[in-house]
């Protein structure tokens, strides 16, 4: 079985970054596994699983020219794990509230106490510069009943954080 590296690239966003980086990887016989690219605060960010024959040092050398040209910074970790390990979420948590320090820590702290495992978290600041609003969606796996989760998050509402918890009913057809 081939070994995987986790590549993290960040930098100023511009068109064709993904195309140029993946072309370079392809030319060196490296394959891609799962990947996630997001634009965060106007920045390009991507994390991707890359596998193949190159070792970490050569991988860095191969990417160096294209990254210099694009002004990206690179981080590589040898990683454990692999493909085909998807876990479907059974709970979706939606959060919103006036932006203030500590919302994520409070909400995820309460969830963690119930044994909730976060699979996917997306958060954003909406509203205006004067009145920023924090909005977050969390998908994950709960091992306690919905009612117990509801009870756990109810204390957050008293703190002015709007939280709703709903089951994700998977349909297989």
């Amino acid at each position, binding site marked *: 079985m081939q070994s995987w590296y986790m590549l993290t690239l960040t930098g100023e966003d511009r068109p064709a970054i993904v195309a140029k980086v993946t072309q370079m990887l392809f030319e060196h016989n490296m394959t891609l596994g799962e990947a996630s690219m*997001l634009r965060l605060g106007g920045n390009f960010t991507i994390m991707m699983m890359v596998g193949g024959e190159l070792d970490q040092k050569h991988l860095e050398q191969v990417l160096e020219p294209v990254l210099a040209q694009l002004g990206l910074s690179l981080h590589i970790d040898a990683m454990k794990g692999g493909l*085909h390990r*998807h876990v*479907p*979420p059974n709970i979706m948590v939606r959060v919103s509230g006036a932006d203030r320090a500590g919302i994520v820590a409070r909400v995820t702290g309460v969830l963690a106490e119930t044994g909730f495992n976060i699979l*996917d978290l*997306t958060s954003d600041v909406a509203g205006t510069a004067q009145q920023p609003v924090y909005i977050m*969606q969390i998908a994950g796996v709960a091992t306690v009943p919905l009612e117990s989760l509801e009870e756990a998050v109810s204390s957050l509402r008293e703190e002015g954080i709007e939280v709703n918890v709903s*089951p*994700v*009913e*998977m*349909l*297989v*057809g």
Partner: protein
Amino acid sequence: MEPLQILTIPDDRLKQPSEPVTSFDDELRDFVAELELARQQGPAAVGIAAPQVGVLRRIAIVDCSNTRKPVSNHGNLVLINPEITHWDGYEVGREGCLSVPDYTGNVIRATRIRLKAMDEQGDEREFEMEGYEARAVQHEIDHLDGILFIDRVVSRRTDLFKRKVYR
């Protein structure tokens, strides 16, 4: 009886539109029974469509009567030449597919539909349904048109309000 094999992507037959059924005979009813068996052998599948076993005919089965959390349903439905005549509202839900192993994604479907279909005797039936069952029917009818849920998955950030387009 050997169970029917479920085709998985990238099998080209999953991308073909299916032909309407014209004769309602014992051969059809035998096939429906085999298709139901294949559905029951799938892991928790609430629906199956004939193209998923390589038969390009407009036949599907939907059964939401046995979900983990009970949902409104019309029991075990054999849907032949099904047609959605009316739809209303839309919502996002998570789907997987016997033909797409190890992948699930969010898909926008109509919340409520009116459906016309024949049963395996050739009798025309009409249904009004909503939510989970309506979603399952839309997923199966997509199979009859050569469309998979992965063709409709919405990006978690950007596409959430994109309208579903029916052919």
